[in-house]
């Protein structure tokens, strides 16, 4: 019997009690809040923005708790650096999922984002998670961190995973809610993978992406949308430097993907509400993007009935941007 409700915000003393009771948990909270927790079977990352039952919320004195369900057969916390990240897939259970938290703007995030699709075990071992961050006013001043509750270690340059083993009657199912769709503009291709783009190919001709965005006056609060066999995968813009003629993004672009600029979205809250069927089963875990929170002015506004941390990047097998990610634990048969 759990001492704490699954998937909701809790006070620090409530989370301390749950850890003492032996709960296995994924946690999201401010560095100050997470630093007050004892060792235990938990992993966490720094963020103080949340989707709650009442709407988007900033809170540094509470922690978003996702309990590992009682039916799980095991939950093991392990941290990884950029050099041993491929080991994550070898450590992942054959039937289960891995909850992964990576600190923003780090080498380990870059390695995951660029190389995960090539790792042995990609897609076969479901990986769900998010990118830890800081207060948006403190970007570039404070450092995002992740916590391995088992060892008590705090990292700014490593990621932390909890590998959850499921019984044979359950299976992990990841899905995404993307309120953006491709616009009707040019198809854009890239010759190499990376978070920073200079040249791209449009209509078979090399084009500088920064020049293109500037000349076409393209609003960069909306992402590039990649076509993955019909599924839309976003890459969001961090900055466009017209002088250096470079574009920095929050996730890598990849060769072999057809990208287009997204159709603009007006009311983000309504768009999420429409995309999420009412009465839909609550996921085992969910997160949404800080850019949706900021650009969509989601403070105090709901995103369907889904709750969870609001993050600096979302993971459903690979790094995503401006996307809601959901994990469901389905019954088999």
């Amino acid at each position, binding site marked *: 019997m759990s001492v704490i409700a699954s998937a909701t915000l809790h006070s620090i003393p409530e989370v301390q009690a749950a850890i003492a009771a032996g709960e296995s948990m994924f946690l999201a909270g401010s560095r100050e809040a997470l630093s007050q927790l004892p060792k235990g079977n938990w992993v966490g990352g720094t963020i103080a923005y949340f989707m709650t039952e009442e709407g988007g919320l900033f809170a540094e004195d509470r922690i978003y708790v996702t309990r590992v369900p009682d039916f799980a057969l095991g939950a093991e916390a392990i941290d990884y650096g950029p050099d041993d990240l491929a080991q994550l897939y070898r450590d992942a259970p*054959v*039937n289960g999922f891995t909850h992964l938290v990576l600190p923003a703007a780090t080498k380990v995030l870059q390695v995951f984002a660029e190389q995960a*699709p090539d790792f042995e075990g*990609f*897609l*076969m071992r*479901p990986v769900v998670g998010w990118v830890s961050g800081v207060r948006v006013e403190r970007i570039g001043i404070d450092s995002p961190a992740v916590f391995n509750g088992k060892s008590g270690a705090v990292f700014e340059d490593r990621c932390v995973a909890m590998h959850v083993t499921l019984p044979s009657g359950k*299976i992990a*199912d*990841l*899905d*995404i809610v993307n309120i953006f769709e491709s616009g009707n503009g040019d198809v854009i291709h890239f010759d190499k993978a990376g978070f920073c783009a200079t040249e791209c190919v449009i209509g078979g001709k090399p084009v500088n992406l920064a020049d293109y965005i500037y000349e076409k006056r393209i609003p960069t609060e909306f992402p590039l949308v990649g076509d*993955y*066999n*019909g*599924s839309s*995968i976003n890459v969001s813009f961090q900055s466009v430097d017209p002088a250096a003629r470079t574009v920095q993004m929050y996730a890598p672009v*990849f*060769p*072999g*993907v057809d990208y287009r600029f997204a159709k603009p979205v007006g009311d983000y809250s309504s768009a999420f509400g429409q995309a999420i069927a009412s009465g839909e089963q609550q996921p085992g875990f969910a997160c949404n993007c800080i850019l949706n929170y900021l650009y969509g002015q989601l403070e105090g506004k709901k995103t369907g009935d889904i709750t969870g941390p609001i993050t600096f990047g979302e993971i*459903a*097998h*690979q790094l995503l941007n401006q996307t809601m990610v959901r994990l469901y634990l*389905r019954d*088999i*048969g």
Partner: protein
Amino acid sequence: MLPDINHPVWVEFVTGTKPLHSTKTTINMLVHNNKTSYENDPSPENVKKLVARTHDFLTQFQTLFAIEVAEILK
């Protein structure tokens, strides 16, 4: 029950000869990943690797992708 790994449908699927239309992101990532891998390396060895991975994936997750499996086998 999935066809054996040596069934020709798997080569058709991983090389894109047999397209799949799905709304599910995970399997669309698999199709996309197969496509780019095959375009970069169309060798028989790589096709064999992609078939093995795809067969393993659909064996493990066939309850989630029953509609997609049916479309592949059509």
